[in-house]
């Protein structure tokens, strides 16, 4: 043994050495391949979805015409009526778009400030004991099925919150289905997301920055708002964008609470239809495959996809652009 180990030149030692390396390399390669396939699966799915959306909506395969080959882009983006299921068909995405954006806007007005405030509270103010109590509760909020939120909007928010205030108090007409109740519950729904992601960003700010700020005579509020929040800016904005993307894509609660009335309106107390609600509506009905209504599904889905993709890319860009380098 010893002599073998000492005699480097006789060749036997390098041989076993190469053997072992080859086996290890093989394992390494196999593991790498498995991981690569897993990564490929999600990429493949995404590409598949994009392919289906584009072929049904834009390009058209074989004899079948794609949606945008029958309906012009100009009509799609300027027409103010969305009536694919009526005899007099109009394909203007605007009512669905405003419905979606109004709900997402209301949700953002509620979810972003509340989420951020709770993130600041959890990260900067809460004692470890309180944090350990509040965090799981927020996570429970994230785990509630969205259909429950929709139901909650319909049977609680509208009759017991909106109507007493806006109908009985201010004399406005609040519909059974309305954008406001949907926006409110979606806003509540995105609070845990904003809070959790923003808190991660806030907590990753080095403790040294806080200490330095305290040493300069800052109050806790100064430290939180003037030092920690700006330092975590990119993470907070990214959490906002992801939450808005989630609100835009939210389906079940919106379908239940906002209704299916594709009217072009900015009145939050009237029923609207979001893009996602339309997709649910058409998918559930007995729409004939290949009909124009069926194809409009893909056009709407593609629009939705482009919006959420843009939000995601934007949030990535914000993260990169404003990422501060700490040594």
């Amino acid at each position, binding site marked *: 043994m010893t002599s073998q180990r000492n005699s480097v030149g006789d060749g036997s030692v390098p041989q076993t050495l190469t053997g072992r390396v080859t086996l290890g390399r093989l394992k390494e390669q196999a593991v790498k391949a498995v991981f690569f396939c897993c990564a490929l699966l999600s990429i493949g799915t995404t590409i598949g979805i994009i392919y289906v959306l584009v072929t049904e909506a834009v390009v058209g395969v074989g004899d079948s015409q794609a949606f945008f080959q029958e309906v012009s882009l100009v009509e799609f983006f300027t027409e103010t009526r969305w009536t694919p299921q009526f005899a007099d068909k109009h394909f203007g995405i605007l009512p669905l778009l405003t419905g979606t954006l109004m709900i997402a806007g209301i949700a953002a007005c509620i979810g972003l400030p509340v989420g951020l405030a709770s993130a600041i509270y959890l990260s900067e103010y809460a004692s470890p004991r309180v944090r350990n109590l509040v965090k799981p509760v927020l996570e429970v909020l994230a785990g509630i099925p969205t259909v429950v939120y929709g139901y909650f909007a319909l049977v609680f928010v509208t009759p017991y919150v909106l109507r007493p205030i806006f109908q009985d108090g201010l004399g406005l007409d609040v519909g059974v289905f309305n954008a406001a109740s949907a926006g409110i519950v979606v806003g509540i729904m995105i609070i845990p997301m904003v809070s959790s992601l923003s808190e991660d960003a806030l907590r990753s700010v080095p403790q040294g920055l806080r200490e330095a700020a305290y040493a300069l005579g800052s109050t806790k509020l*100064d430290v939180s708002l003037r030092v920690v929040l700006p330092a975590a800016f990119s993470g907070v904005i990214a959490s906002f964008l992801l939450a808005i993307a989630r609100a835009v894509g939210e389906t079940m609660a919106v379908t239940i609470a906002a209704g299916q009335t594709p009217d072009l309106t900015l009145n939050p107390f009237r029923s609207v239809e979001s893009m996602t609600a339309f997709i649910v509506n058409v998918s559930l009905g007995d729409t004939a495959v290949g009909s124009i209504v069926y194809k409009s599904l893909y056009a709407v889905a593609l629009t939705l996809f482009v919006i959420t993709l843009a939000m995601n890319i934007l949030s990535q860009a914000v993260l990169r652009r404003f990422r501060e380098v700490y040594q």
Partner: protein
Amino acid sequence: MVTESTQSPEPPALPSLADITTAFSDVADVAERERAVKVETIDLDFFYGDVQALFGVSMQVPEQAVTALIGPSGCGKSTYLRTLNRMNDIIEGTRLSGTVLVEGQDIYAGGIDVVALRKRVGMVFQKSTPFPKSIFDNVAYGPRVAGEKNKAVLTEIVESSLQRAALWDEVKDRLDDSALALSGGQQQRLCIARTLATSPDVVLMDEPASALDPASTARIEDLIFELKKNYTIIIVTHNMQQAARISDHTAFFFEGKLIEFGVTRELFTRPGEQQTEDYITGRFG
């Protein structure tokens, strides 16, 4: 010899050069000993939860001088430093007994405004901690949280603070650049400027040069020498040569206790305690 020379500065016999330097140093040492007290602690005990980190530390820090706190890692010197501006308050589960006086005022007494205290007793940390803001906004931070909004006043404060921190010439043309673009040594001087901008009387420094290269360290040491004309400086350092170079007084801490406190030159040449001698001669730590 020593007492003689301090009483009559001109000895009758022609002295050797060594005698003269010793004599003058000793005169300086006496003057050093008679400096007014700026910060004082009396029987200071400090606890992290159940762990006691400081044991009955009583010390008088003289004003407009540099006092170095030395000792091996974990000896309590940083903890001691942080009790002087109540930085330890922000660590959960810490407890303190005893008295800390800044200009005779008990800073742990009820009704003390910690925010105001920290403006008077500034602090520079081991790791430079520039805020991710512009150079100007970094220095203006302290005055701004204190409520100063006048742009002209802020500009004035920023300029004078950067000048006192010997950074002005390097950054005057790019005050709006991010502070994170500065080099390590510049960042640390920026942090010193930021501390000076709140016009403190006392500046606490927790190993301010330990993460810097020798050239930057030398600049910081020069700066500290300049600053002591106007500020009382208390500096924690691991580096005994540094303590000997820049400080007028030195406190040696060991295992949470103040072992010895004295004029730096005396403590390094004639330590009164065996432990001090062992430490400064490199026998441990």
